[in-house]
């Protein structure tokens, strides 16, 4: 890598972008204009919403407004308004416009229902935003209630006249109803307004009663609730809003700012024919990628920064006038700038790789949507209430950054700081992966010289079937993996919906045979000429079989330890735990052994270490093949916690399969691993710590927690070391390389020779 070449390319690309009017508009002009305009329109929209009065239908309210001994509900002067005293802010009187339903003579019970139904219909049809329905006997019952109260009072004051009270105090109070619709926003607003008014009215009635009883009005409200906002004192007023808005803004604009230059610098160069000029210059592919990457990063950062500054200024000048908003906290600038670099780097590398794949700028633009669809959930997920910054969440790419930023902007710096390390590590890791992907795109001639071909499915299928190779292609491996995942997903969801497979036997056999093994076998027969090579059906060296078995046993405590860590990070919900336990409750252990250990060991190995691994071997490096096949293997497991562990175990099995060139050691490892898990779970179910007393020294190796056995860390360390030694032994085995792997190795050798 030559630094001066990278600088040269960087300088050229920046100059190129600066000379492009479209880029300048997107990056500099748009943000400066956008937010002040948005701020202005926000105000207008807000005013528009505020000033719209709600139309309310009053049913059966005639008697209510006429009733002498009730506080007035309706303004006696203007009959279409509520009484002004019922509003805390007198301006709001005009926001409720009343209409009165015509009073009709009521006779039978059917006629009694009529106004109620009419009111509902009127609200449904949208003639009114809401309606208030007073039952016909409302006034009468209220008056009776008041009379009863009064006589009780008199009875108390003059106990000499011990007369029976006219009416006992009724237990059930009358219920006026508000008719509204939650499906309609205007109706919801009307409901909220009406509810406040009726509540205040009720308060007035209570007050009157208290006055009549000679009690102070404070009797109904013995205390008030006052509030004090600490955010106000620390300058974090409005931080809650800003801490949600600013991180999203940062991420979205960092991505947008990266996307357009990336498309222009890669797809655009392809289209204009200048990419080949650059490719046959002495600049290395990695130098070209780095030069372009840094350019894109700079533009991404500039876009995000300008947008945030513009938004911040608008917020500071305009939104700060609203009582519920404050200006953005000053420290936010620091946190946002710190986060900007890694976030921009990540998005720039992603956009670069995508744009390098595109053949033309037009095709490049199409990739924005998929990129957004993948990224948006990660950005929006942390906005869900209850999602907090913890170790588990901080390990999710993008989401971790948003959560960390949110906590920082909210002012919880001390609590958030420990998570900066995992978040940075994950972001950096993703960044490096994305950069590698981009470099790969630039090294792949099929990507650089892609031609638009007419899509013809029949031809394509014919090509797949006719031009078969001994082992499947990488895309066939991806197809097989996705097919298994999809079928598995639909099977599980449809089983959950339309009924259950009664026995666990049926479920396991269905999943393993039909969902996992069958697609791999069918695709092997259809798409390859050598099932033996594809599925690694070869006799291994005999020593590898006991070695694989030993590895499985030796590695077991490490896997259990890892699983425990994963479960601490992402606790399994109790519901899921119960379900998993319930499955194993009352089955014969050897029956279960076949279902959990033997069948999956064969079926899953055929699919993941057979077809899929062989396909990925064409990518040029065995580790890539191993990791990709392990990821697919992990994803077929149903809960996240299992997926993580299974992916790791999948890497080990994949490695064993590659090094031995045979599926048998992989099956042996898988069988013993699953078997151990099952047997340990079976034997240690409901175990008491006393069991360990039977064996001397057992306490030093393990302990009992929540009714299951847990290994102590020296055991785990010893297990990891022993496993490492065994893996070294596997590593030393000569293994068969694919053509692509041979070529890659030859290139590496030549490069080393040159250096």
């Amino acid at each position, binding site marked *: 890598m030559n630094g001066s070449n990278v600088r040269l*390319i960087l300088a050229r690309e920046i100059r190129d972008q600066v000379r492009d009017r479209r880029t300048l508009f997107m990056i500099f002009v748009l943000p400066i204009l956008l937010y002040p305009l948005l701020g202005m329109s926000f105000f207008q929209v807000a005013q528009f919403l505020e000033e719209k009065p709600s139309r309310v239908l009053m049913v059966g309210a005639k008697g209510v407004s006429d009733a002498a001994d009730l506080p007035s509900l309706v303004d006696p002067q203007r009959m279409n308004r509520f009484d002004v005293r019922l509003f805390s802010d007198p301006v709001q009187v005009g926001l409720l416009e009343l209409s009165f339903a015509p009073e009709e003579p009521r006779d039978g019970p059917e006629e009694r229902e009529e106004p109620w139904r009419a009111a509902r219909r009127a609200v449904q049809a949208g003639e009114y935003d809401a309606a208030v329905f007073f039952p016909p006997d409302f006034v009468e019952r209220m008056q009776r209630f008041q009379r009863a109260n009064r006589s009780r009072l008199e009875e108390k004051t003059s106990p000499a006249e011990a007369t029976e009270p006219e009416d006992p105090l009724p237990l059930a109070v009358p219920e006026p109803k508000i008719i509204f619709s939650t499906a309609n926003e205007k109706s919801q607003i009307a409901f909220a307004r009406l509810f406040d008014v009726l509540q205040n009215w009720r308060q007035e009635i209570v007050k009157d009663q208290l006055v009549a009883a000679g009690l102070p009005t404070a009797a109904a409200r013995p205390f008030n609730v006052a509030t004090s906002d600490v955010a106000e004192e620390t300058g974090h007023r409005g931080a809650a809003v800003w801490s949600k808005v600013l991180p999203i803004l940062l991420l979205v604009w960092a991505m947008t700012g990266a996307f357009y230059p990336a498309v222009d610098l890669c797809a655009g160069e392809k289209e204009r024919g200048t990419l080949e000029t650059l*490719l046959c210059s002495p600049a290395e592919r990695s130098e070209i990628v780095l030069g372009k990457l840094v350019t894109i990063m700079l533009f991404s950062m500039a876009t995000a920064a300008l947008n945030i500054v513009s938004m911040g200024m608008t917020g500071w000048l305009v939104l700060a006038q609203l009582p519920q908003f404050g200006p953005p906290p000053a420290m936010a600038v620091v946190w946002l700038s710190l986060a900007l670099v890694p976030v921009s780097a990540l998005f720039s590398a992603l956009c670069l790789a995508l744009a390098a794949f595109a053949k033309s700028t037009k095709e490049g633009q199409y990739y924005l949507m998929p990129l957004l669809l993948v990224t948006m959930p990660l950005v929006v997920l942390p906005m869900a209430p209850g999602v907090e910054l913890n170790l588990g969440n901080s390990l999710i790419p993008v989401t971790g950054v948003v959560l960390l930023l949110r906590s920082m902007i909210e002012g919880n710096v001390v609590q958030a700081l420990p998570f900066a390390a995992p978040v940075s590590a994950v972001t950096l890791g993703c960044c490096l992966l994305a950069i590698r992907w981009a470099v790969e795109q630039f090294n792949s001639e099929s990507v650089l010289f892609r031609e638009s071909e007419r899509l013809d499915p029949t031809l394509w299928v014919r090509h797949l079937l006719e031009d078969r190779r001994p082992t499947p292609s990488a895309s066939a491996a991806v197809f097989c993996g996705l097919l298994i995942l999809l079928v598995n997903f639909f099977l599980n969801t449809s089983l959950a919906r339309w009924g259950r497979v009664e026995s666990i036997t049926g479920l396991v056999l269905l999943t393993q045979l039909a969902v996992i093994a069958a697609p791999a076998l069918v695709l092997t027969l259809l798409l390859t000429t050598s099932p033996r090579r594809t599925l690694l059906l070869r006799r291994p060296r005999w020593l590898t079989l006991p070695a694989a078995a030993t590895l499985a046993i030796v590695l077991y405590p490490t896997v259990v330890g890892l699983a425990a860590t994963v479960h601490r990070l992402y606790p399994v919900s109790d519901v899921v735990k119960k379900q998993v336990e319930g499955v194993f409750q009352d089955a014969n252990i050897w029956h279960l052994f076949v279902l959990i250990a033997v069948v999956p060991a064969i079926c899953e190995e055929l699919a993941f270490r057979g077809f899929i691994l062989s396909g990925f071997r064409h990518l040029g490096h065995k580790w890539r093949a191993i990791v990709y096949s392990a990821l697919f293997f992990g994803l077929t497991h149903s809960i996240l916690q299992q997926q993580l562990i299974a992916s790791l175990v999948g890497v080990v099995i994949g490695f064993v399969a590659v090094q031995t060139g045979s599926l048998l050691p992989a099956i042996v490892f898988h069988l013993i691993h699953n078997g151990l898990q099952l047997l340990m779970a079976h034997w240690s179910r409901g175990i008491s710590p006393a069991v360990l007393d039977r064996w001397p020294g057992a306490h030093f190796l393990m302990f009992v927690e929540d009714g299951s056995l847990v290994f102590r860390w020296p055991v785990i360390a010893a297990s990891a070391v022993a496993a490492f030694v065994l893996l070294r032994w596997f590593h030393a085995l000569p293994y068969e390389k694919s053509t692509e792997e041979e070529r890659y190795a030859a290139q590496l050798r*030549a490069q080393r020779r040159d250096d």
Partner: protein
Amino acid sequence: MIRVDGLAKHYADLRRGKLVALGGISFHARPGQIYGLLGPNGAGKTTTLRILSTVLLPTSGTATINGYDVVNQSSQVRREIGFMSANTAVYDRMTAWEMVEYFGRLHGIARDELRHRMEVLFGRLQMNEIRDRLGAKMSTGMKQKVSIARAIVHDPPVLIFDEATVGLDVLVARALLNSIAELRDHGKCILFSTHIMREAEKLCDRLAVIHRGRILAEGTLEELRDQHHERDLEELFFQLISRHDECHPPESEVDRTLEAGRDR
């Protein structure tokens, strides 16, 4: 200087199965020589030259330039060559001077020396009036001049021209051919691909007639004329091609090769 040995390139093609763009060609070009690759469109000329410029990887066979292997020592190879084809365009948003300077710097030429070299080059190619013109505002001829300047600014021992005169008017094409001849006289090894007989006749010291990924005939112009008893190159070319097509009709061939009109 350029040594090509059994070079082959296959593509997977949905429509036609395995597609042989190059079926194992071999030739050898020396310094002070213009070696012509003469073939119809889609013969495999561009594929060959792209492999030599390290942009494509061969499926099999080897090629070395100045002793460097195009697959394993690609960066050294790119320092030794100046490559110019219809596919190596000029940047729209760069002036002629900036463009040539950029590539000169990428070749690691020191600033002062580069400046001096560019002054000479711009004078010789009569490019001084387009010095500060953006690529987007240039005519085809101007762009072609910039491309030449870009390809030879680092004074490479090997030059590769792929259909360099396509789209040029007679005057510019003639000037270009003259500069290529001049470069040969300076001792460069030049690989020149074309489908125009006149150019090949005028310019090339040795010729290889290439068709459907194979070399049909190879030698100096005189040797070819004597071997095939035909003085007129165009006639000779046509005979070679049609004879080959008669013996190997495209359909009956096991490895279906590129059809005319399609160049990869």
